[in-house]
C-alpha cells in the first residue's frame, strides 16, 4: 500500500494555479485600465505587484518557466513604474502575450510538463518591449491610437471583449484566441445556471458541460448544448447500473460461491462503470463563479440602496463544482454577500474617518482543495463586534458570557441572534446565518468565520465537489471498518512508540513531530489500538491516528447519510459495499478537530487535577506570524510551520501584521517584501522602531535577489533574508529554529 507521497506539493501547485488565475485577471483588467489612459502610479504599482507575486509564487511551488516569464513581465512593468518607458500598444501586447504564456505554462507545470519554447518566446518579447518609447505626456500616451489593437496577436481583441469587470478569460489555456469575432459573445452552454438574475453580463465562454481542461479552447462546433435533466438522468442511470453490478457481485458470491473480484469480466465491468460515472459527473460540473453575476448584482443593488460604495471582486474562476451542490450554495452565498454590504462595509464617510479607502471591497474567492471546494466571502469592513454578540446571546444563554472570543464569534450562527440595532429590509432580523448553516449542512458543507475588528470579516465555506467515487484507504478501528479518502492520507506508519510532549502524544514523520491519537478513542468506539498509524492531512494540520489494522484500498461511491441524520463533522458519508454492508467514509478535517479538542480537554482535566507527576518542561509551541499577500505562499508556509509544531498566524500586508503583533506578540515574523499598503521593508522598520519589539526576530522572504534589496533588508533591521528562488523547506526551518533558539 502506498500512500500518496508528493500530494502536498502538487496541491500547492494547484492552489497556486488558482491564485495566479485571479491575479492574471486583475493584471489584465488593470492593463486595460492603463490602456484607457488610467496610467496612475497606483495602477502601475499594482500591475507590477501582481507580476511580482506571480513570480514569487511560481518559484516557491517549483514552476521555473512561469517564474521566468513573470520575471520578464515584472522587469518590463518596473520600467513603466520608474517612468523610464511609456505605455503603448507594443507594451500592452507584450504584457498580454506574457499573461497568455503564463496561462499556458501553469497547467502544463501542474501536469508535470514543461514548454521551453513558450517561455522563451514570451520572455524574448517582453525583453524586446523594454526598449520601447520613452515616457511622453500622459494624456498623449493615452490617445485613441493606442487603443487600436493594430496587428496585435489574437489575444488582444479577446481580452478587450471581456473587459466587463467580472468577465474572465476562460481558464486554463487562453493561449489560443477564440475563433469567433470578439464582438459577439461565444455561445454559452448550460446557460440556465446563470439565468434568473436579469444580468446581461457575459461569462467565461468555456463554462458548462465542456468546461474542463482541454488543450485549446473548444470551438463553437465542438460544443453541444445539452439540457441538464438529460445529464442528470444519465448520472442516475449509471448510478443504478453500478448498484445493480454490486448486487450481481453479491449474488455470484452467495449463489455460486464465486468471488466476483476474481473474475476479470466482472472487474472490467466495474472499472468501465466507474469511468463512465466519473465522466458523467464531470459533465455536471460548472464553475463556482457562474454564481458571480447574481452576487455582483445583489452587491450593487444593495450598495445603492444603503448609499455605500462597494467593489465586488472574484478570484478562482476555474474552481468547479457539481451543479446540484452549487445550486444549494446560491442562497447561502447571497446571504453572506448581502450581510457583508449591510453589516460589514461602513459608509464612505465612516471609512474615510478610519483612514480606509471610501470604497469597500467584497471578495468572492473559490479554490479546489482535494475533494472540496473552499469558497471565501470576505469584506474589508468593520468586522464583527464579538463583545456585542456575546452580550446579546448572553441575555438568553448565560453560558455565552463565559465564552472566549473565538467561541463567541460562532454564536452568530445561532437562530434568532442579531446585533443590528435596527431592522432593515436586508438584515438585522436574526435570520440568515443560521439558515446559511442549515443549507450547508444539507450538502455536507461547513462554514468558518474569521473577523478582525476594524479590518473585516471572512466567511469560508467548504463543500464536497460532488458525492462521487472516492479512492479510499480502508482500515479497521474498534473492530469496525472505515474508509478514509486517500487524498487526505499523508503517510502510513508501522506500529511505533509515541512520546509525550507537553502533555500531548506525538510521533515522528519525516523528522517532524506530529500529534497522535487512537482512532477508535476519537470516534468513541473503543480504546487504544496498537496497530499501524495513518497520518491524515486536514485543511491546515496533520494528525496521526492509530488503527487496529489496514484492510485495503478501494473506490467508494460516497453517498450522503440523508437529511435526518445530523451533520457529523468526522463522517463524510457512506458507501454500500458489494456484500451489502455499509462502509462509513471518514472526514480528515473533522477527525483532526475532534482529536485536538479531546486532547485539549484531557490536558485541561489533567491541569485541573493538579497532576501529581512532574512533566518535562512544557515547551510552549513558538508562534510565527507569516506576512504575505499571496495566498499560496501563506498557506504553504502555514503548512510547513504547523507541521513542524509551530503555531501560525497570517497577515496579508504590513499594516495587518502590525495589528496582529499589537494584539499578540509572535515569537518570529516572516515577511514578504512586495505587498500592498505596507511592504516588508516598511514593516520591519516599523517593528524595529518599537522598543518592546526590538528583539523580535524578523526574516524577509522574497523573490528579489538583488544585492541592493538584500542590503536594504538588512539595513532596516531584518535578522535574515531568504530568496524564494532558492527556497528550501529545511533551510527555512533551520533559519527559524536558529533565530528562535537565540531568542528563547
Amino acid at each position, binding site marked *: 500500500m502506498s500512500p500518496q507521497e508528493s500530494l502536498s506539493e502538487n496541491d500547492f501547485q494547484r492552489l497556486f494555479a488558482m491564485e495566479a488565475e485571479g491575479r492574471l485577471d486583475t493584471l489584465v483588467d488593470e492593463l486595460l485600465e492603463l490602456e484607457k489612459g488610467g496610467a496612475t502610479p497606483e495602477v502601475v504599482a499594482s500591475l507590477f505587484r501582481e507580476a511580482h507575486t506571480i513570480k514569487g509564487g511560481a518559484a516557491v511551488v517549483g514552476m521555473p518557466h512561469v517564474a521566468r516569464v513573470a520575471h520578464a513581465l515584472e522587469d518590463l512593468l518596473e520600467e513603466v513604474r520608474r517612468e523610464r518607458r511609456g505605455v503603448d500598444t507594443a507594451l500592452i501586447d507584450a504584457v498580454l502575450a506574457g499573461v497568455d504564456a503564463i496561462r499556458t505554462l501553469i497547467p502544463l507545470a501542474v501536469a508535470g510538463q514543461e514548454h521551453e519554447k513558450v517561455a522563451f518566446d514570451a520572455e524574448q518579447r517582453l525583453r524586446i518591449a523594454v526598449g520601447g518609447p520613452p515616457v511622453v505626456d500622459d494624456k498623449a500616451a493615452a490617445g485613441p491610437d493606442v487603443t487600436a489593437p493594430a496587428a496585435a496577436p489574437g489575444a488582444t481583441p479577446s481580452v478587450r471583449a471581456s473587459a466587463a469587470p467580472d468577465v474572465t478569460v476562460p481558464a486554463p489555456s487562453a493561449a489560443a484566441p477564440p475563433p469567433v469575432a470578439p464582438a459577439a459573445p461565444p455561445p454559452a452552454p448550460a446557460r440556465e445556471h446563470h439565468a434568473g438574475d436579469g444580468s446581461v453580463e457575459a461569462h467565461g465562454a468555456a463554462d458548462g458541460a465542456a468546461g474542463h481542461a482541454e488543450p485549446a479552447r473548444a470551438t463553437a462546433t465542438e460544443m453541444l448544448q445539452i439540457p441538464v435533466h438529460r445529464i442528470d438522468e444519465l448520472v442516475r442511470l449509471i448510478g443504478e447500473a453500478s448498484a445493480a453490478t454490486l448486487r450481481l457481485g453479491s449474488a455470484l458470491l452467495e449463489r455460486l460461491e464465486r468471488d466476483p473480484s476474481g473474475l476479470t469480466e466482472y472487474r472490467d465491468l466495474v472499472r468501465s462503470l466507474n469511468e463512465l460515472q466519473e465522466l458523467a459527473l464531470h459533465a455536471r460540473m460548472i464553475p463556482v463563479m457562474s454564481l458571480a453575476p447574481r452576487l455582483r448584482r445583489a452587491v450593487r443593488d444593495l450598495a445603492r440602496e444603503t448609499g455605500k460604495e462597494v467593489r465586488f471582486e472574484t478570484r478562482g474562476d476555474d474552481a468547479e463544482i457539481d451543479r446540484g451542490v452549487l445550486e444549494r450554495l446560491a442562497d447561502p452565498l447571497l446571504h453572506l454577500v448581502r450581510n457583508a454590504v449591510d453589516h460589514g462595509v461602513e459608509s464612505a464617510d465612516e471609512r474615510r474617518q478610519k483612514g480606509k479607502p471610501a470604497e469597500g471591497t467584497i471578495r468572492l474567492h473559490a479554490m479546489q482543495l482535494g475533494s472540496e471546494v473552499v469558497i471565501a466571502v470576505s469584506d474589508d469592513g468593520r468586522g464583527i463586534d464579538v463583545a456585542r454578540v456575546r452580550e446579546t446571546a448572553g441575555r438568553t444563554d448565560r453560558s455565552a458570557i463565559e465564552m472566549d472570543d473565538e467561541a463567541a464569534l460562532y454564536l452568530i450562527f445561532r437562530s434568532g441572534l442579531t446585533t443590528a440595532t435596527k431592522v432593515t429590509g436586508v438584515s438585522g432580523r436574526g435570520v440568515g446565518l443560521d439558515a446559511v448553516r442549515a443549507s450547508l449542512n444539507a450538502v455536507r458543507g461547513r462554514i468558518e468565520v474569521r473577523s478582525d475588528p476594524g479590518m473585516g470579516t471572512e466567511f469560508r465555506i467548504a463543500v464536497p465537489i460532488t458525492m462521487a467515487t472516492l479512492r479510499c484507504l480502508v482500515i479497521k478501528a474498534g473492530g469496525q471498518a472505515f474508509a478514509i479518502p486517500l487524498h487526505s492520507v499523508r503517510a502510513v506508519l508501522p506500529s511505533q512508540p509515541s512520546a509525550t510532549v507537553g502533555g500531548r502524544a506525538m510521533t515522528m514523520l519525516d523528522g517532524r513531530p506530529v500529534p497522535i491519537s487512537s482512532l477508535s478513542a476519537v470516534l468513541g468506539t473503543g480504546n487504544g489500538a496498537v496497530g499501524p498509524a495513518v497520518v491524515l492531512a486536514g485543511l491546515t494540520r496533520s494528525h496521526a491516528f492509530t488503527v487496529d489494522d489496514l484492510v485495503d484500498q478501494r473506490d467508494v461511491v460516497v453517498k450522503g447519510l*440523508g437529511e*435526518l*441524520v*445530523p451533520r457529523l463533522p468526522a463522517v463524510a458519508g457512506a458507501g454500500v459495499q458489494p456484500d451489502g454492508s455499509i462502509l*462509513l467514509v471518514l472526514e480528515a478535517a473533522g477527525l483532526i478537530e475532534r482529536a485536538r479538542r479531546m486532547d485539549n480537554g484531557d490536558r485541561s482535566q489533567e491541569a485541573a487535577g493538579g497532576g501529581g507527576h512532574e512533566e518535562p518542561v512544557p515547551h510552549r509551541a513558538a508562534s510565527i506570524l507569516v506576512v504575505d499577500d499571496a495566498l499560496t505562499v501563506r498557506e504553504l508556509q502555514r503548512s510547513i510551520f504547523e507541521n513542524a509544531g509551530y503555531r501560525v498566524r497570517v497577515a496579508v500586508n504590513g499594516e495587518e501584521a502590525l495589528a496582529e503583533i499589537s494584539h499578540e506578540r509572535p515569537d518570529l515574523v516572516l515577511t514578504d517584501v512586495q505587498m500592498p499598503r505596507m511592504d516588508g521593508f516598511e514593516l520591519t522598520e516599523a517593528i524595529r522602531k518599537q522598543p518592546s519589539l526590538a528583539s523580535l526576530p524578523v526574516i524577509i522572504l522574497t523573490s528579489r535577489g538583488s544585492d541592493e534589496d538584500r542590503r536594504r533588508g538588512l539595513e532596516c533591521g531584518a535578522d535574515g533574508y531568504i530568496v524564494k528562488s532558492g527556497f528550501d523547506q529545511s533551510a527555512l526551518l533551520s533559519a527559524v529554529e536558529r533565530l528562535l533558539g537565540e531568542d528563547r
Partner: protein
Amino acid sequence: MAGASTPRVVLGQLALLIPVGSDTYAVSLETVREVVVDPRVTKLPTSPAVVRGVFNLRGDIVPLLDTGLLLGLRPVMEEPYAVLVETPHGTAGLVATDMPLTVRLNESVGHSDIEGTTETYLVADARLAVALDIPVLLSPGRISQ
C-alpha cells in the same frame, strides 16, 4: 406545511402497530413503506444516541432510529425489526422490538401528552396504542437534539 399533506392516524383507518418494549405505537399505514426483519445495522460513531446506525435498503442508506429515545423514553435494547416510514426529509427506520401488525383503528380513547404523538387508541388484547405524529417526531432538529 409538510404535516398537512402527511397522513395521520384517524378513526377507521388502517394503521401499523409498532411494539417497543412493553409499549405499543401506531402509525398510519400510508406512511409506512415496508418492514425490514433483522436489519444489518452499521454503527454511526459520534452521532446522537437516538441514531442507532444506518442500514442498506437496496442500495439506499437509511438511518435506524431508537423509537424509545425519540419519544424521550427508555432506549431500546435490540433491533429485530425496522419499520420504514416516509417523512418530508426522507425515509427512516423506527425500531420495533416485536413483530408489527396491521389493524383498523377504533375510536380514540383520549389525547396523548407525549410530544410527537397525537391520540390513544384501544387495540386488540386490551392494549393501548399511542399514535405517532411522524412529521413532528422525525424532524431533523428533533433528532439532532
